[in-house]
């Protein structure tokens, strides 16, 4: 029952299809559906392959998971390095505690699960066993934000807010396969704990066209434009780039500043770009509007005395619906079409 005393089903309007009726019915995507559009270039399991390769020169790296190796692409690492892979069972608190134990003994553990389970169920372990002493544990989590249609149990819509609040923890939200490959290496090199959001399976390849190179803690201007600046992270950078191309056809010139490192935030570049040219500033993220990149940027701009026209593209502060992912991305305003429409409306 909802807070308003009504069951959710009272508001739902199921539309059974009459026998033989035409049309395609959108179904709930597989839990781990790829977010790649049809025909889009992709790379398979970029995290798993990057980690397996990195392990060739980094004997300190071990991989741990809580019954989700296949769904976090860690199975690629496990196959390449079976004796360096630890299956901890469906026990996320143990997963994080054990990862801390490995780090204490000089290893660099990569611990994988879904973002909901790391941020919600295992938080205290991540906080006290890992972050409090800045141990070298890399937490890599699939299903960030709204990337599954399975409903709130699997939709990690508030993970960035949770981990942003955690001292010592770095927070990364990569955009595509290329960035995941590069970030995997970069976070292994960085001392201290890292939380990285993961797109898994066949992951779109987008940033190769921009000569992109991930640098820890740096944001990158992928394209420039005088009318609006989209400051985006994670898969929303993909959407922002697509939206900018479509808007270009209507002579609306939109810049895109990609911010893969949410914490520590590249305040200098963000403030400089937001200050430049009096553009509309839109922050886009695959996360609730509470406590994510949008509020981080807003705070940074306010502290710097920069006050552009400011808008947020983010998920609402609500438990989201279940259903087909394309439907949900449209519904909550994070599909490319929705981004285009909203920027037009705000200009």
């Amino acid at each position, binding site marked *: 029952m909802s807070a308003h005393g009504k069951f959710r089903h009272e508001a739902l309007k199921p539309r059974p299809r009459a026998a033989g009726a035409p049309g395609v019915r959108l179904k709930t995507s597989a839990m781990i559906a790829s977010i790649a559009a049809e025909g889009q270039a992709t790379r398979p399991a970029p995290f798993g392959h990057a980690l397996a390769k990195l392990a060739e020169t980094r004997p300190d790296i071990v991989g741990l998971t809580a019954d989700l190796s296949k769904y976090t692409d860690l199975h690629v690492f496990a196959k390449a390095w079976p004796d360096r892979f630890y299956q901890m069972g469906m026990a996320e608190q*143990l997963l994080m505690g054990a990862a801390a134990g490995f780090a204490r003994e000089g290893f660099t553990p990569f611990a994988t699960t879904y973002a909901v389970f790391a941020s919600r169920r295992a938080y205290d*372990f991540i906080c006290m066993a890992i972050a409090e002493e800045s141990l070298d544990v890399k937490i890599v989590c699939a299903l960030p934000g709204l990337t599954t249609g399975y409903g709130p149990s699997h939709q990690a819509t508030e993970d960035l807010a949770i981990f942003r609040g955690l001292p010592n923890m770095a927070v990364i939200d990569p955009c595509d396969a290329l960035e995941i490959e590069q970030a995997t290496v970069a976070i292994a090199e960085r001392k201290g704990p890292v939380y990285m959001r993961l797109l898994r399976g066949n992951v779109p390849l987008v940033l190769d066209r921009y000569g992109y190179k991930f640098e820890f803690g740096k944001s990158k201007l992928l394209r420039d434009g005088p009318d609006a600046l989209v400051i985006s992270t994670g898969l929303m950078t993909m959407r922002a780039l697509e939206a900018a191309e479509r808007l270009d056809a209507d002579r609306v010139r939109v810049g895109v500043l990609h911010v893969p490192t949410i914490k520590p935030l590249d305040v200098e570049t963000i403030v400089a770009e937001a200050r430049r040219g009096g553009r509309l500033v839109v922050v886009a993220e695959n996360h609730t509007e509470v406590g994510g990149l949008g509020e981080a940027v807003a705070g940074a701009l306010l502290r710097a005395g920069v006050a552009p026209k400011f808008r947020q593209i983010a998920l609402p502060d609500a438990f989201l619906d279940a259903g087909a992912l394309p439907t949900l991305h449209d519904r909550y305003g994070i599909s490319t079409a929705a981004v285009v429409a909203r920027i037009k409306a705000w200009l």
Partner: protein
Amino acid sequence: MTQDKDARRPNVSLAERARRIRRLAVRMGEVQGQGYVGQALGIADVLAVSYFHALRHRPDDPYWEGRDRFNLSIGHYAIALYAALIEAGIIPDEELETYGGDDSRLPMSGMAAYTPGMEITGGSLGQGLSVSVGMALALKRKGSGSRVFNLMSDGELDEGSTWEAAMSAAHHGLDNLVCIVDVNNQQADGPSTKMLGFEPLLPKWEAFGWYAQRVDGNDVGAVTEAFDRAMAHEGPRPRVVICDTRMCKGVPFLEARDITHFIRVEPDEWAKALAILEAAGPL
């Protein structure tokens, strides 16, 4: 009262070590006028056997790679572990005066970054055994012969994560892991068994795949034999020594008091408790 020049002096009995640990804990309690002295007095015998019989460690090199790891999952037992670390010569005796003070290396709840010899940050109860599982796996991976000792309380048996870790340790055959459970039957809200029943404890740990023993945790001889059996056991199983202890052991007027989680000691009673412990030795 000065510290032994050689804390490892072999001719000091374990019972005497326990008495001195109790004495040091009471002195720290007096510094703060409070503290988990009841637990410290209860666990002193187990710590004496741990630091002066079972553990391989070097007082002048607390981070020696070949040491056995002693993980204090119960952060609030720090007062007891500090006493053991002082008695073992890892922390200087005079530092006792700083217990719980500003900028002290001996905070009220144990944290690894603050104190030499404190291996983990405990305090959020139920985490230590999971960290210990990771350390035991890591030590095996390194080919190290070091062992991991995890000291936890009966209250931590309430935490689900304890049992995640218990299953995992058996699953991975962690014969280099020794878990010590202090059963003093006292939690914040009352007797542990009334908070969340955990008995029968011995068959429970056995059913989880551990080589389990249950002893009187205030009987130095019994604890020593149990640790020896745990070490000598050849099965590929983790070991648990369940130690039934008595809160405030060694100070009869406190033992007789209505025992609570956070024992109240009147300002004039510290000296009285200390005098009792002084008079009891050397053992």
